[in-house]
C-alpha cells in the first residue's frame, strides 16, 4: 500500500469515528481513539483503541477496514441542501442561449426573465461488473428534477459553491417526495456512463473470449482431422470404425458446449445501484422563449444555472432524451420540440 493510500485510509477512519461521536488523535499513521460504546461494538474494538496499530491494522481487506466501510455504507444518505450563489446573470442571455441551444428552423425571442429556484438531483451510483473477475466504480449524475434533463458537470461543480444542508427534519416543500422519473432517468444515464467506463474491461473480456474460443476451435478442428485420417487405417474393424465415426459426429456438439462454457465464463453482468443522493435547491434565472415555426407558435422555458454558468439542456418532448438541439414538429396540441432522431422517425 502506498503512503498516500495509507494516509487517505487513516484520514477516512478518523473522520468516521468523529462522525459517530468518537474522539480521535492522529499520530504516526495511527488513530488513537476514544469510541462511544455503540461504535466500539460495531467495530469490535475496546472503547479506547489504537486503530492502525498491531491489533487493528489499517490495511485494505483487513477486518477493521471492512467494518469501517460497512458502517459508512450501511445507510443510503440523501442530503437536502441549498446552494448559495453570489451572482446571478442579469443580461447578455441571447449570446449564451445561442451557444447552448440550437433551435433548428425556428424563430425565437426572449419573452420574459425571472429569478427563481430550481431543484437538482445528484445521484451517486455504484456499479459492479462481474465476469471472471470483478470491476467496480462510482458514477455521479446530476439532473434537473423538474425537466429530468441531464446537467453534465453539475455533479462536480456544486462542490465549488457554498452548500448549506437543511437542518434535520426541515426539508422544504419544494422537494418532491417522489422524484421517481428523475431518478430513473439518472439511473439510465449512470448506466450509460458506466458502460463507457467499462469499455476497457469488456474489451479485455472479449479479447480473452476470442483467444480461448479460437484456440478451442483450432484444437477441435485438428482433432477432427486426425480422427478422420485415422479412419483410413486398413486394419480398422467395422465396429471400431462406426464408433469413431460416432465420436467424430459428436465433436461439434462437444465444441459448442466448450464454447458455451467460455461465453458463460466471460459474460459480463453489470449492476448499477443508486447509493446516495444530494438534492439541491439552486437560485437560477428562468427565461421564457417565444418560438415560431411556419404558422405554429410555442414557448420554451430555459434555466440559466449559476453553478454550470450555462443554460440547462432541454428534453425531447417525445423520447425524453437530453439534448441541446431541438427540432420543430407539428403536433395535435401545437408546436412540439423534439430531438433529431424523433424528428427523423416521424418524417
Amino acid at each position, binding site marked *: 500500500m502506498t503512503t498516500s493510500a495509507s494516509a*487517505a*485510509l487513516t484520514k*477516512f477512519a478518523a*473522520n*468516521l469515528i468523529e*462522525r459517530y461521536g468518537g474522539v480521535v488523535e492522529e499520530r504516526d499513521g495511527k488513530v488513537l481513539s476514544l469510541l462511544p460504546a455503540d461504535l466500539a461494538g460495531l467495530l469490535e474494538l475496546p472503547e479506547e483503541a489504537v486503530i492502525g496499530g498491531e491489533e487493528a491494522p489499517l490495511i*485494505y481487506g483487513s477486518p477493521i477496514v471492512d467494518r*469501517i*466501510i460497512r458502517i459508512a*455504507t450501511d*445507510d*443510503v*444518505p*440523501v442530503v*437536502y441542501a441549498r446552494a448559495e450563489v453570489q451572482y446571478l446573470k442579469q443580461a447578455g442571455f441571447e449570446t449564451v442561449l445561442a451557444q447552448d441551444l440550437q433551435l433548428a428552423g425556428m424563430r425565437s425571442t426572449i419573452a420574459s426573465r425571472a429569478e427563481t429556484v430550481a431543484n437538482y438531483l445528484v445521484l*451517486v451510483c455504484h456499479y459492479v461488473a*462481474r*465476469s471472471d473477475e*470483478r470491476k467496480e466504480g*462510482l458514477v455521479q449524475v446530476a439532473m434537473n428534477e423538474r425537466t429530468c434533463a441531464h446537467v453534465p458537470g453539475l455533479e462536480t461543480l456544486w462542490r465549488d459553491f457554498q*452548500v448549506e444542508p437543511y437542518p434535520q*427534519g426541515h*426539508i422544504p416543500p419544494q422537494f418532491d417526495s*417522489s422524484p421517481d422519473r428523475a*431518478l430513473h432517468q*439518472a439511473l439510465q444515464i*449512470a*448506466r450509460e456512463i458506466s*458502460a463507457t467506463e467499462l469499455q476497457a474491461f*469488456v474489451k479485455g473480456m*472479449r479479447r*480473452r*473470449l*476470442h483467444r480461448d474460443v*479460437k*484456440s478451442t*476451435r*483450432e484444437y*477441435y*478442428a*485438428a482433432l*477432427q482431422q*486426425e480422427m*478422420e485420417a485415422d479412419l483410413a487405417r486398413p486394419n480398422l474393424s467395422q465396429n471400431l470404425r462406426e464408433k469413431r*465415426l460416432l465420436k*467424430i459426429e459428436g*465433436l*461439434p456438439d462437444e465444441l459448442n*458446449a466448450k*464454447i*458455451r*462454457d467460455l461465453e*458463460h465464463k466471460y459474460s459480463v*453482468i*453489470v449492476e448499477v445501484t*443508486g447509493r*446516495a*443522493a444530494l438534492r439541491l435547491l439552486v437560485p437560477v434565472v428562468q427565461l421564457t422563449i417565444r418560438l415560431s415555426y411556419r404558422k405554429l407558435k410555442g414557448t420554451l422555458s430555459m434555466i440559466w444555472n449559476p453553478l454550470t454558468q450555462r443554460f440547462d439542456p432541454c428534453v425531447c418532448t417525445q423520447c425524453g432524451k437530453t439534448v441541446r438541439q431541438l427540432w420543430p414538429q407539428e403536433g395535435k396540441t401545437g408546436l412540439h420540440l423534439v430531438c*433529431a*432522431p424523433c424528428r427523423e422517425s416521424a418524417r
Partner: protein
Amino acid sequence: MALHPKERKRLKRQKVSQAKRLRAEKLARMEHLEDHFGLAVDSYNDGDYERSLRHAVKILEKRPNHMDAWDLALDSVRMLGDRKKHFAILVWKWREGLLGNWKDCFSLGKLALDRSDYEVAAEIFESVLQDPFLNTGWGKKKRVEDVRTYLKYAQAMMQVYGASRRNVYPAGSERPQESSGEVSANGTSGNSRPTAGIESPPTQVATGPETPQEPAPPVAFETLPDIMIEYKADANLVIDAIRQCRQADRRSFELALQAYKHSFRVSFDQLLCLPTLRNVEPLWHQQETARKVMKTFRGRAILADEVGLGKTIEAGMIFKEYLLRGLVRTALVLTPSSLVGQWQEELRDKFGLEFATSNDPLFRQDLDRFWSQPLIVASIAAARTARHFDAVTSRTYDMVIVDEAHHLRNHRTRSWQLVNAIRKTFFLLLTATPVQNRVDELFNLVTILKPGHLETRKGFLEKFVARGKPTSPRNRELLKGLLKEIMVRNTRSVTQLRLPPRFAFTTRVTATDLEQRFYDGVSALVTHAAAKANPSITRMALRKLLEAAGSSHRAALGTLEKLATVQDPEIRSRVEELLAMGAGIGTGSKTRTVLELLKSLPDRKIVFVNFLSTLHHLRDAFKQHGIRHTVLHGGLAQAEKAAAVEEFRNGVPVLLATGTGGEGYNLQFCNIMINFDLPWNPMEIEQRIGRIHRIGQEKEVQVYNFCAAGSIEDHILEVLDRKINMFELVVGEVDMILGHLQDEREFSDMVFSIWTNNAGKDDLRKAFEAFSDSLKKARLAYNKAKELDEKLFGEDFGV
C-alpha cells in the same frame, strides 16, 4: 423538314425547362444527400452510430464514390463493434472498386474465409491475382503463391460446403444470446449490400450436419462470438430513503463516497477471504498460489503441490475468494469416495461453507433435489454412474474442483468423460502426482482443463514424448513453458516446510486371561451378528463395538449396554454374558502399561483416545496414580478447551484428549504423543499426529502406539507401521498410497470385512497378508509416480 419557328421555339423552351428541372432535381438530390451527411455526422458525434450508419448507407446507395460517407460508415460500424456489418460494408466497397490496394483486398478475402463466406473469398482472391501490383517488386513469387493457396482453399471449401456456411451451431441447438446493450444481432451476407435492410433480422441458416454420412463440419473459420452483457439497474434504495424522508448530513454523504472508493482498492492481491478463515492460518505459498490462480490463470488451473502442502486449503481459499466477490455461487467438488467426508468437514470448519455431500441421506432419497443443490461434494465414483451422469452434466457450475485428479489420466475412463462433459466456469484440478506412469497422462489432464493447450494427442506425442520412452519428455523447455501457463506445483524445499523427523514405537500388550476372553467374546459376537445380517443391529453398530473393545473394556461395556435390548434372544444372552465378564476386568493391562510409560517420560505428552468412556476410565486411573493431567474433549465449551490447552502449555505434564477435542488447537509445543487406542481410519491417525507434527515443531516427534496382541488394531498397526511405514511418512502420503489401492471402500471398511469374513486365525493372517501386499504395491506405485513427477517438474512450477 424545317420546323415551324413557333414549334422550334416551343421545343427550345421545353429543352430549357427540362434542363432547369434536371438541374433543380440534381440540386435537390445533392441537398438531400448533404442533409443525410449532416445528419450522419451529427448522429456520429452524438454517439448514435446505428443512425449515423443508416444515413451513410443512404448516401452510398445514391453516390457510391462519396468517400467521406464510406469513412463515416466504416467508423460507425467499428464503433458499433459489429463485425458482420463491418464485413458487409468492406465487401460492398470492394465491389465498387474503392477498397484500396491488393493488400487490403487480400485481408478482406481472409476475413471472408474466417466468416466461411467461401464464394466471396474466392472472388476476392481471384481479383487480387489480377492486380498488377501483386506481381511486381520484391517477394512477388511468394505473394502470388500465398494468394493462390488461399484461393484454392476457398474453392475447395465451396465444393464441400457450397458458397457459404454461416452458422457454427447445429440445427436445433441454442444460439448464444447477443448482448442487450452492446451489439445488435443484425447480419448481412457479404454478397449483398448493407442497404436500408441493414436493420433486417439475421438471415442465418443452420446448416449443421443432418445425416451421419455427411462429414462433420470443420470447426475452425467461424465468426467469433461476442461477449454477453447484461445490465441491471436499481434505484430503489434511494427512492425508499426519499419517500421515508430520511435525511443525512453532508459528512455521512462524503463518508459513504469515500468508503465506496476505498472498497474498490481491493484487487486479487488483497485476499478478502483471509479474515474469514477459521482454524487455519494459510501459509505464504498457499496465499500466493490462490493469487496466481485468480490473477494469472483466471480460475482454471492444476494445483499440483507436493503432498502435505495444502492443496485443499488453496482450493478452498480460491473458492471462498470468488464467493466473497460474487463471482461464484455454485460449486461441485468431486473426490474419491473416502474423502467426501473430509472435504465436507474442511469446508465447514475452515471456510464456514456448508456443502451437501453424497454421504447425506438426501443423496439416497431425492436425486433431483440433491443435484440441484448449489454447493455439492460428491464421490466421483458415484457421479460417473449412469444413474447420475445426466443429472451432473445437465447444469452449469460456477466452479468445479476435482481432487486426486490423477484419476483423470486416462481419457477413455468414465471419470474423464464425466469431468469433460460438466459445464463449468472456474475449474481446479488437484493432484500431487499429475503424471503417474507416462508423460501422455499429462496431456489428458491438461486437455480436460484447456483443450488444445498441448495440441492434439498425436501432436503432443510427436512433439513432447521420446519415441519408445513414455516416461521421458522431449522439448522439455517448451513443455515446461506451456505447463507454467496452467499449473502450480510448490515443493517442500521451495516452501521451506521441513519438519523434524518422527518416530513410532508400538507396544503390543499381552492381555490377561479375562481380558482376552472378553475381547474374543466381543469379536465372536460381532462376527456372528455380521454373518447373520441381523436387522436389529447395523453393521456400523457392530464395527463401533469392535472398535470400542480395542480401545478399552470400559468403552466396550458402554456399547454393549446399548445392545442389551436387541430382540434377538441369542445375541441378547451373549451380550448379558459379556457385560458380566467385562465388569470384572478392573484397571486393565494396557492401562497399567501406559501408566508406567507416563511415569517414565519426563516431557509433556498427549494421550489420545477414541472413546469418551475410555477417557473417563483413564482419568480415574490417572487420579488413582497421582498423575497430573488436564482433559480436552469435544463436549467441552470453547473456553474450557482453551483453558485446558493453556494449563497443558503452562506445565501440566499430561493432556488426555479425544481426537475431536484436539481439533483446531496447535499443540506443537509438545513432542510426545501416545495413541492409547487406534482409529481404524489412517487419516484420523494422521490428524492426531498432525496436532504436534506441524510447522513450529522443533524437536523430533515420538509416537507411542498401544494395542492388545491379537486384536484387530494389532493387525492394522502391522499393516500401517511395518508394511508401509506410515508413521514416518510425510503428512498426506498415506492418503496418496491408499488412493493407489484399486478398492474404492474406506480403509476401515476393508479391515472390518477381513475381520468378519475370516473366522480362523490362519485365514485371518493370510487375508491381512494379502491386504498388506496390495498396500505395499500401492506404496511402490506411489513412489514411482512421485519420482517421475520430481523428474518432470522439479522446482520450476512454484509460486
